[in-house]
């Protein structure tokens, strides 16, 4: 999903920061050191997102089944960057559609390898419920996205191996394999195509627990914010087994709107609307 910042290897990130001006050519480890090269690509993608502080955005989710029937969901997202280098970001989702779940909200404190902390607010009962975050591989809102596709993609959650560089559309991409290190993933591995100049993902292939190709996600319509932060506005997931698709359309992405920790508490979850 949105490649969020992460500061997994603090020292490495620090070196990058001090020796390279932003968006300058990146020196990667040589091709015969595939793991180091794969990790460096992920770290560089991540580094380019450091300092965004907080974002708010609106998302429309368009679900299409095998016979072409369409249903939609609308969700608002708020994200707070975690200043702690060894921990994940905080995330608040509020559902607007379908209408029967309007007002339902989900608060997540992401961690790297430990289980995320997650609370759900059910407006009809006015109940805040702590929920299990084990269900990483389950479908999110009946879509082709799993919960883990939505959670923050911290560098330390995966191991990496660079495979090759190749053309991707009219661009050139680093192709790397990524294996989840956290528990309960539905994937054995993913293969990602990351642009060699802006270090943003253009395509991800997901392989299921039997290591067969399950889904492909493509990213489109990248736009630059604050002259620094790229965000895709269109994502398209195809499930090769069920032939169902899910299209995410992001609108009205706002950076640094003044959110802070108190906007991501159990108490503020009850006020989410």
């Amino acid at each position, binding site marked *: 999903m949105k490649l969020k910042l992460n500061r997994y290897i603090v020292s490495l990130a620090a070196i990058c920061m001090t020796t390279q001006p932003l968006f300058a050519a990146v020196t990667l480890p040589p091709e015969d050191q595939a793991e180091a090269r794969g990790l460096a690509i992920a770290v560089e993608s991540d580094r380019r997102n450091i300092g965004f502080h907080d974002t708010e955005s609106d998302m429309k989710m368009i679900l299409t089944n095998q016979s072409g029937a369409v249903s939609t969901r609308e969700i608002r997202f708020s994200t707070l960057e975690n200043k702690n280098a060894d921990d994940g970001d905080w995330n608040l989702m509020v559902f607007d559609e379908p209408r029967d779940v309007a007002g339902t909200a989900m608060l997540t404190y992401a961690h790297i390898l430990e289980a995320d*902390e997650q609370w759900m607010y059910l407006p009809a009962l006015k109940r805040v419920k702590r929920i299990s975050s084990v*269900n990483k591989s389950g479908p999110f809102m009946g879509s082709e996205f799993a919960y883990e596709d939505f959670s923050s993609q911290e560098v330390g959650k995966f191991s990496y191996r660079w495979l090759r560089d190749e053309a991707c559309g009219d661009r050139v991409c680093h192709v790397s394999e990524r294996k989840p290190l956290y528990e309960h993933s539905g994937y054995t591995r993913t293969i990602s195509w990351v642009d060699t100049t802006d270090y943003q993902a253009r395509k991800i292939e997901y392989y299921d627990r039997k290591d067969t190709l399950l889904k492909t996600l493509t990213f489109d319509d990248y736009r630059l914010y604050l002259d620094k932060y790229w965000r895709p506005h269109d994502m398209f997931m195809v499930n090769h087994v069920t032939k169902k698709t899910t299209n995410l359309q992001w609108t009205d992405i706002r950076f640094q709107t003044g959110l802070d920790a108190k906007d991501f508490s159990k108490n503020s979850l009850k*006020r989410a609307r």
Partner: protein
Amino acid sequence: MVSTPHRQTIYLTFLTGLSLAMACNTGKASEFEFEGEIEGEWRHFFNEAQSSTSHDDFTSASALLELGIYSDDGTHALIAKPFARADSHDENRSHADLREAKYRFVEDDFELTLGLDKIFWGVTEFAHIVDIINQTDNVESTDGEQKLGQAMITGSYVTDYGTFSAFFMPTFRPRNFSSTDGRPFPGLTIDNDNETYEASRGEDAGDIAFRYAHSWSVIDLGLAYFDGTSRDPIISLANMQNGKVIPHYPLREQISIDAQATLGPWLLKLEALHQDESNETSERVVAGFEYSFYGIFASSTDLGIVMEYLWDERGDEAPHPFADDLGLGLRWTANDIQSTTLLAGAIIDLEYESLAISLEAERRLNNSLKLSLEARIQDQIDPQERLLYAVKDEDFARLRLTYYF
């Protein structure tokens, strides 16, 4: 029904005036929101009614609106949620209630609300014993999950060491009961207008409550104190007047704990309280677990198991039938586009082996329409379980179609 419309009206008028004054004072742009739901309902009772004037089938319609005005910076909010139902046969079930009508002020870590509101406390599924702020809207559903709006002034302060809240409730709302024509009918009619109180000031008792809540890693904890009129009335045949039972509301002081440990797929839950009511102290506990199997049988569906033990020191003297009971529940979630869910629950009395079963199914039909089916069945009810025995022939099914906008 609102038993004291006059008092509630004065109170609301005062609040609305105060709120508008405060809201206008900010001089900032506001956002207006309007949404709601309309529901059609059909209930069928499987056995013939005990009362000759009652029926086996009930149709009903209800509406819940939500209106909100929010200041741009989120500091001020005015929120109203009026609810109304019309029932084909039960005059007491045809009722209206302001679920919420409040002004809310938030600044930094402080939150203040004034007006009618609804508060939920607790973690368990089969009973909500620590949840004491709101009165149960007893004609709405038999599970006690629907609540009447409660007038209150609430202050909350969020710190790094937890959230501290204080509640003052100037007026009390008695529980509403079905009419003689309504069902489920417990064999006797309860008077909705002439309740008695232990508190000398009656429904102006001025109840207070405090709560502390915090989360540490896998633990979520709540501690609460309540001092005021009990939400549970004493229903005694000794208190009859004109063929109706007069409910009595004693004073209660209560301390409670609710806690959950979230350990992977395990949710370990505890609610416990100590209460002092009519100079008699007693304890109540609900404790158990929820375990979820995700992606069962290589599908994308989930199965959750809930098991809880319900205990009340008062045993047969408790004003509810769950003094030594085991709750067992299965929740199946299809994770499909329609968010189909099935819920089967059973409460088994460990002493008398009585069985209360509930089945619930839900499915979204389109972006704004949902269908829900529910059945409540009782079996092997022992005559000594007097509260359940009174409604042992009141098994029913309920079908609801809800339109959201």
